[in-house]
């Protein structure tokens, strides 16, 4: 399988490092796996015979791979130019218009490439359009890394709950807000202090609104609703309240009654992201940066999965998507 990676940021680089480290396992499924191109904002690296994973694992900028680096060329040109079987999209999320990831995915699917994306923007903005396009071109579009990082959400439902109807999903879908609320719960600190701490630890961005105003969680609610509950909803359909106004007094009052305040994304008849009181003995009551999802289904009734929702653990989901596609291709041949 010939693959392209678009996005050479933290996650893209860690993915290459992981593929290099696990190349023997990958070769058991696909002995001809090659990464032939990597795109970034300032240009792309391309070699039809395959780029050196070892070399790419040791650099931070693509321009440090001078023999195959094409300065100023765009990732769209890379996708259009080369004959790849798979495009991996790992550019930053933009939930306003999904770009540039949306164009990358559309171009790749139109060329008949399978797609693995960690970028949730395109899946929030154009879920139906992209899944229809993948179907039309007989391609796989895998997006496990877009919701709850390393937690196998879509794989679980698609492979292990095939006879179930999902009635309700609720979950902690943003690790940063969970970290802040956990610090307030355990240490009694103010929201502002817990936020500063999260910023100092690099858990959130300098502009934290994406995390604390529930924008990130609402994006994931949209993907979950569309992918697992067959809804056709947009970001604006999610009723959203963030955690900015949570006070230490509120956390303390809740705690005295056996509850923790958590930012919960919820999908049933309505779509909602809001702070909720979670009983301390409820399986969703996880702390720190952990994510958790609680499914209510007609047959299995209740299932909860917990894990790391962001950071380098996310490559676990991407690797699983890549290997799944490689296996499907190898079974087909």
């Amino acid at each position: 399988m010939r693959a392209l990676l678009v996005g050479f940021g933290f996650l893209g680089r860690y993915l290459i490092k992981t593929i290099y480290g696990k190349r023997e396992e990958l070769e058991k499924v696909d002995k001809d796996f090659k990464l032939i191109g990597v795109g970034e904002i300032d240009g792309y690296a391309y070699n039809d015979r395959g780029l050196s994973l070892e070399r790419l694992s040791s650099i931070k900028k693509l321009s440090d791979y001078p023999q195959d680096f094409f300065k100023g060329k765009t990732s769209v040109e890379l996708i259009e130019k080369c004959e790849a079987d798979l495009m991996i999209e790992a550019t930053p999320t933009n939930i306003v218009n999904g770009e540039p990831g949306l164009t990358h995915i559309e171009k790749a699917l139109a060329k008949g490439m399978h797609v693995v994306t960690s970028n949730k923007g395109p899946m929030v903005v154009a879920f139906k359009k992209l899944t229809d396009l993948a179907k039309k071109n007989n391609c796989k579009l895998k997006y496990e890394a877009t919701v709850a990082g390393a937690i196998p959400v879509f794989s679980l439902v698609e492979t292990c709950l095939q006879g179930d109807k999902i009635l309700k999903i609720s979950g902690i879908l943003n690790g940063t807000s969970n970290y802040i609320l956990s610090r307030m719960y355990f240490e009694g600190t103010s929201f502002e202090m817990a936020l500063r701490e999260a910023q100092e630890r690099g858990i959130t961005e300098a502009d934290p609104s994406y995390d604390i105003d529930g924008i990130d969680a609402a994006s994931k609610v949209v993907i979950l609703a569309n992918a697992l509950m067959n809804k056709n909803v947009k970001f604006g359909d999610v009723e959203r309240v963030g955690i900015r106004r949570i006070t230490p007094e509120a956390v303390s009052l809740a705690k005295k009654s056996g509850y923790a305040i958590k930012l919960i994304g919820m999908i049933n008849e309505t779509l909602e992201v809001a702070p909720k009181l979670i009983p301390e003995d409820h399986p969703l009551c996880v702390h720190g940066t952990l994510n958790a999802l609680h499914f209510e289904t007609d047959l299995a009734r209740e299932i909860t999965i917990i894990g790391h929702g962001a950071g380098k653990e996310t490559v676990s989901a991407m690797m699983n998507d890549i290997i799944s596609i490689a296996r499907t291709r190898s079974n087909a041949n």
Partner: protein
Amino acid sequence: MKFDLTLGLVDRPGQLIKALEPIAKNGGNIISIFHEREKTTGAYVPVSLVVDFPNVKSFEKTKNELEDMGVSVIKSEEIIEKAHITFVLIGKLDIGKIAETQIESMRIIDFEASAPTSEEACVKLNVEVPVEGAGRVISKLKKLAKEENAVLISSV
């Protein structure tokens, strides 16, 4: 819907079987039955039942038929299952307004307010509502919180 029924039966063999006939005929499913022989008054023995009827009409029909048969219906009332919901409200709050708000059968069991260290006051409420109306109660409280520019945090 479940009903709590107490019938006064004549203390003679076969009376209970007779009394159960209209219940079965009208689709009532007996959840429990208790023969309160120690509470016998005169010739009557009270029998307490919890019966699940398909609707109010079937319950009322049963009650009329029992009375027509001469069975005394000492007590008959619907059992309304209650849910307890906890809320925390944050904002510039008028507790009186919440207490005065008539939300279908919502009963405030207790509330606790904290001494605010900021402009935002904070209050916790435990309320009791009929199970079937819990969703509507939460929606109405959300609306009220929005009008008051308060944050409503409800239990899941």
